[in-house]
């Protein structure tokens, strides 16, 4: 993966930089010893590593602003980092960059049930936001699989989704306001406890901008009362195509489940071995979940199961207890970990129109054969967000390269059928060089013009999202 050449002048001024940062940050918030900066050399995309010049851990918006101003004045690139769970290399440093970690920004600032929001510092983990309100019956809806570890800051940077976003939407649909520090240290407040921030929809722009426009330090998030109950049903089919058709028929029937998850045989076996969820051994498994009171759940599941029966399922079984439901979800949410126990893998994140599911699954099967690498499929079928896992052997020379080539082909297929490269993981460096397959040069140019406005010197996470050849003119103009 090509990265911009580190700026030797920045590296040469490391001592000066650390000295200036130490005037605005406590000593233990600055990590500059090469042995310690290695902890920040990569995120969850571990194939690429590079220790940063330094890492800083500010504990307030003011500290973030002071530190950014110093980096801005000295021309030092800054890579913001949530919890480092990015699968796309969003938090991968360069040698001349400072990692700005938000881990110490983890306070709950305000909880307001009457107006249904919570205001938090963004280093707080996704699950602990729900943790702060669940005793009172509320929850924060976006639920990425990494929710135990991932930070709200990273959720905002990547506009994270999760299994239940078919009903509740992704991060942006649940984000009401932010405090954001621009690269030059300017603190901005956008939105708040009211709906639809004034002016242009800058919240919509910031969310999903991969830490390239500013550092979000505080967020106002919508919270909801938990549903009375939820119940998943397992549906097993003997072909992927039939399962895909069943998904489309369920959606068309006018019942909207909170989640429709899909797994293929490879994945089913790995997850079953890991979670003992009672998954059937079949070609394709759907987990369909609905919410409400018991009677409401019965009514919805009756409709859904009737549709499933028309597709001759090899298994059709409702969960009968809370414990069973938890196991069913544990299996699904552990899919990446379970696959990781048996193989190295690369996780893709393309999204396709739901109507294209059967065709795309068939093509992935064929491509898997052509490349000689197994592909396990696990994904959010209701919204077409696919997560093909390409299995490879990291110790086998050439395997990673073959795996990346297959991944690129699969993502191009997603674009070809009317979809996109990434549904919730972000572009990072992983999909950066495929952006020209999705967007024409002028489509990318207007996006980069947005970065010119927020970060005229192109110092925030500059090597991500846009192919280096595309962004070169902007980066040079910024120097």
């Amino acid at each position, binding site marked *: 993966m090509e990265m911009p050449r580190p700026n030797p002048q920045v590296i040469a001024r490391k001592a000066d930089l650390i000295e200036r940062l130490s005037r605005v940050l406590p000593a233990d918030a600055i990590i500059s010893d090469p042995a310690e900066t290695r902890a920040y050399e990569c995120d969850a995309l571990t194939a690429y590593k590079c220790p940063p010049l330094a890492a800083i851990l500010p504990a307030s918006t003011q500290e973030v602003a002071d530190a950014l101003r110093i980096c801005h004045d000295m021309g030092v690139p800054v890579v913001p980092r949530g919890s480092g769970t990015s699968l796309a290399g969003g938090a991968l440093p360069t040698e001349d960059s400072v990692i700005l970690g938000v881990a110490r920004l983890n306070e709950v600032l305000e909880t307001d*049930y*009457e*107006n*249904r929001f919570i205001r938090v510092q963004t280093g707080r983990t996704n699950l602990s936001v729900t943790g702060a309100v669940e005793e009172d019956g*509320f929850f924060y809806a976006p639920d990425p699989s990494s929710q135990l570890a991932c930070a709200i800051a990273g959720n905002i940077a*990547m*506009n994270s989704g999760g299994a239940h976003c*078919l009903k509740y*939407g992704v991060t*942006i649909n649940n984000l009401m306001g932010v405090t954001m520090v621009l690269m030059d240290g300017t*603190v*901005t*407040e956008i939105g*708040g*406890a009211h*709906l*639809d921030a*004034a*002016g*242009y*929809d*800058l*919240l*919509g722009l910031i969310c*999903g*901008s991969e830490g390239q426009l500013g550092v979000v330090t505080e967020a106002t998030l919508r919270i909801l*009362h938990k549903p009375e109950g939820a119940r998943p049903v397992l549906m097993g089919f003997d072909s992927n195509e039939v399962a895909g058709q069943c998904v*489309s028929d369920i*959606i*068309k029937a*006018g*019942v909207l489940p909170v989640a429709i998850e899909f797994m293929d045989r490879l994945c089913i076996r790995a997850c079953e071995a890991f979670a003992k969820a009672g998954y059937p051994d079949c070609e394709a498994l759907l987990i369909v979940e609905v919410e409400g009171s018991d009677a*409401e759940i019965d*009514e919805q599941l009756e409709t859904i199961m009737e549709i499933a029966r028309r597709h001759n399922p090899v298994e059709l079984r409702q969960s009968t207890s809370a414990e069973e439901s938890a196991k069913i979800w544990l299996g699904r949410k552990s899919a990446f970990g379970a696959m990781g126990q048996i193989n190295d893998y690369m996780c893709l994140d393309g*999204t396709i*129109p*739901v*109507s294209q599911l059967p065709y795309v699954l068939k093509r992935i099967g064929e491509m898997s054969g052509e490349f000689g690498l197994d592909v396990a499929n696990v994904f959010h079928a209701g*919204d*077409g*967000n696919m997560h093909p896992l390409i299995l490879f052997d990291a110790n086998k020379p050439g395997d990673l390269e073959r795996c990346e080539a297959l991944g690129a082909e699969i993502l191009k297929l997603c674009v070809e059928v*009317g*979809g*996109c*490269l*990434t*549904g919730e993981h972000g*572009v990072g460096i992983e*999909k950066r060089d495929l952006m020209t397959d*999705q*967007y024409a040069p002028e*489509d*990318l140019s*207007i*996006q980069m*013009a947005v*970065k*010119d406005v927020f970060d005229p010197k192109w110092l925030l996470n500059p090597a991500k*999202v*846009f192919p280096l050849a595309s962004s070169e003119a902007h980066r040079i103009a910024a120097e």
Partner: protein
Amino acid sequence: MLKPESEADLAALVAGADAPLHVQGGGTRPIGGPTNGTPLTTSALTGIELYEPGALTLVARAGTPLAEIEKALAAEGQRLAFEPMDHRGLLGTTGEPTIGGVIAANVSGPRRIQAGAARDFLLGVRFVDGAGRVLRNGGRVMKNVTGYDLVKLMAGSYGTLGILTEVSLKVLPDTATVATLSIDGLDDGQAVKALSRALGSPFEVTGAAHWPHAAQGSGRTLIRIEGSEASVAYRAGELQAALAGFGEVAFSHDTAANRTLWQDVRDVAPFHAQPGDVWRLSVKPSDAPGIVAQLSGAQALYDWGGGLVWLRVPEGTAPDKIRQPVDAAGGHATLIRGNRSAGVFHPLPAPVAALQEGLRQKFDPRGLFNPGLMGQAA
């Protein structure tokens, strides 16, 4: 009136333009400051290009009449869940609302509180920028973080960043039953508390409004629930019990009558044909009654559980009089009907205004599109 017949014609027209354009769809929502450009409408760019009910997606050219889209959706038992308001009654305009106009003004109705705003259902756009380039962002899939989200940026930018030519939308199933719970006689403060109680329940309230002068001069508080008949009946019972402390809770499950009632809430019907300026406030719900109380001579209608306040005030009321209490509490106020030269949109904090102006200069460097409409430099 310029009326390009195709996206390519529009792009050529913009590329060759040497004077400002007043961009509009059907012209039914004249919101924003006065702008001096040559009128240009997208109303000839029509047609639903793709509709996949099984994928909950619809793609249409920007000038497609909203009515045509709603009809196509209804035929499949689906709808635009964000329930766009029809401004014609309130503003006394005529003409045909277009989907592009809905998106450009980010128009949402009562269900915004539960389902989201227009921008939350916008999956992709095509538009012509100020250089006359045809640009594309987003797509037609539900989840997409491929590059920056200019889709939402275009929603609510009132044609000042580009001229929309095509929009992709997420649609949702319609519901069989629409029911309304109502409580009479609550003052504004109690009403917002009752609405908060309902919205903070697990019973999926999709509308939460309060009309202070509806029931013989006293207030009527309205709560909408939608779904299957059995589910609606169950949730109505639970909500009646939860709200018993606020007074008698009446229940109507006359779906046709309730559809009309909530259309009236959506379209601010009590203010139609009534004199005066009309303001639209977005605030924290519990702040709303206090803000309204500070404005003597104002008549209010509350939606979104109190978070959206429609205010009718004497003609020519100074904007500062409305904005001062909103600023103090947090939120924003927009003049929807009245003298538009006094400043329509809420002034932004300096750093945010600078970002907005910076974006405007990148998207429309020659200042062609609706100069002055959002208060930006002409």
